[in-house]
């Protein structure tokens, strides 16, 4: 609530330039700082108006809830489509088919789940199989409260399905074993990174690819290594104009231009610099050395979309809850 007041106050204090509020999730802080600066220049050249984009970051679910509760976001850029679906469904601030408004399912860049391990990879973790071995401590947040953790969970499940020839029961066993190796379930991705990096707990952190590389850049390549598994999930963090709010603010046009900018060569370059995998072939080719080849599968292919995945795995009484049910 205090946060909301702060946002409103900071929005109303400065009058003059066109203002946008981009409500995003945790690891995109640095990405959108760059995007905002560059897009402001582009927009100034195009329309002659000054533009000021404010950012708001937090857990993806929490951010979606703030928008539902009245945070005046012109744009949402969240960790998973389900969170924007909920905004469309509960607050009716954008149409149900919002994901068709921009190319590629409204995801200008993609990411995946990789492993951050300690230098030298002392437990020899090369792929998902290694994570279920006894004695390996895996750090990942609770998928019920963290968007990133849901991607990790589904990535492990998808891997197991591929490995055991689509045997759902085997997949459940695999994921159960994996979570039995998790000593601490933090509530968010940043919390898990702290547990792994600062407190030295665990052998491997399941992490967003961009977060893992960011951790390397910031904490030194002499302490950690990134291991990219052979198979992983294609994480598609989507973007959308919150149409009703943008219309009210008179920012529909600039908000759309902002998101279109993410798909341009310049926007894709900024994304790639921040370790988001570009969609544009030209940029992807340029940065191909940066991103290891992974055999990807999507949520739609394997789980039939987010709504189904959410209901089956993460809702109360779902598969994730069964992992911790007594007597197992």
């Amino acid at each position, binding site marked *: 609530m205090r946060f909301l007041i702060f946002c409103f106050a900071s929005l109303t204090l400065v009058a003059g330039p066109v203002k946008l509020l981009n409500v995003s999730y945790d690891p995109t802080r640095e990405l959108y700082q760059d995007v905002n600066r560059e897009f402001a220049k582009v927009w100034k050249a195009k329309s002659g108006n000054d533009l000021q984009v404010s950012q708001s970051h937090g*857990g993806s679910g929490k951010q979606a*809830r703030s928008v*539902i509760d009245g945070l005046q976001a012109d744009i949402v850029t969240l960790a998973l489509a389900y969170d924007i679906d909920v905004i469309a469904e*509960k607050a009716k601030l954008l149409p149900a088919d919002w994901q068709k408004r921009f190319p590629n399912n409204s995801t200008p860049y993609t990411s995946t789940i990789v492993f951050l391990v300690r230098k030298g990879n002392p437990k020899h973790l090369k792929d998902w199989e290694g994570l279920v071995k006894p004695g390996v401590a895996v750090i990942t947040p609770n998928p*019920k409260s*963290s968007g990133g953790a849901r991607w990790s969970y589904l990535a492990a499940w998808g891997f197991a399905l591929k490995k055991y020839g689509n045997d759902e029961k085997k997949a459940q066993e695999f994921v159960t074993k994996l979570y039995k190796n998790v000593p601490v379930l*933090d*509530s968010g991705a940043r919390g898990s990174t702290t547990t792994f990096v600062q407190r030295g707990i665990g052998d491997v952190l399941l992490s967003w690819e961009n977060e893992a590389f960011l951790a390397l850049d910031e904490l030194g390549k002499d302490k950690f290594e990134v291991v990219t598994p052979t198979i992983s999930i294609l994480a598609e963090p989507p973007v959308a104009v919150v149409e009703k709010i943008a219309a009210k603010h008179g920012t529909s046009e600039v908000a759309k231009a902002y998101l279109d900018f993410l798909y341009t060569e310049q926007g894709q370059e900024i994304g790639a610099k921040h370790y988001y995998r570009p969609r544009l072939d030209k940029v992807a080719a340029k940065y191909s050395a940066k991103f290891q080849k992974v055999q990807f599968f999507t949520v739609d292919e394997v789980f039939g979309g987010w709504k189904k995945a959410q209901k089956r795995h993460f809702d*109360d009484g779902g598969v994730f*809850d069964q992992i911790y049910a007594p007597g197992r």
Partner: protein
Amino acid sequence: MVTSFQFKRPSILPGFWPAFSYTTLYLSLIVLIPLSAVFLKSVSMSWAHFWTTVTSPAVVAAYRLSFGASLVAGLMSVVAGFLIAWVLVRYDFYGKAVVDALVDLPFALPTAVAGIALTSLYTEKGVLGAMLVPLGIKVAFTPLGIIIALTFIGIPFVVRTVQPVLADSDQELEDAAANLGATRWQIFTRVIFPIVRPSLLTGFALAFARALGEYGSVIFMSGNMPMKTEIAPLLIVTKLEQYDYAGATAIAVVMLTASFVMLLGINTLQRYTRRFMENAQ
């Protein structure tokens, strides 16, 4: 005819109505209205749904953990807090003012900071954890860790409620008891303890209530494993993350009701002991 219900207690002090109106207004705005909003939100779910939510195994385990750990932490706060208050009141030593100020620090510290600091102390690689873990005592990510975090938060409440009472108590009473041949233990149990008992109860109630609602420090210390170290406030947050507003408020309503009943009980007990004391004197 029964005499009409007399709401206002006869008092020679003027200004009952303005003061009482203000109290009601304050309680309504700050306490009752927000809390009734919680209750109203939970009304949106059916009784059966409410019941299955609050009796699901994970929720019951969380209640047990939250109330159990808070109770133990409250008791530990009483023991440690009384000792600290005793030292601060009865002894003079160099640096007393600093120690006195340090007691309040947990009030001011963002509890997340406390949680992170405590956790890094007690993990296997931490200073204290490195000594305790080889002995088989695991603190971080266990219920014990939760109790330690909650005690850390609770101690200042006990110190600050007991300290003034102890300072006010008449030391001549103790001298008199000693003159009459009482042993030190008797002086403590028969003279000192009855004087501070009501304030200890108040301190306990405050520490206990604070511990029940504590979130910031515990989530770092507890490891948050479902069924084992997941506290009720965390479950509420998790439910919110899943857009289950009604489920979150259902858990909150049960916690609120249980806390209210327990606090009411403690307050009644406290009033009773105070009255008992007054009669005895």
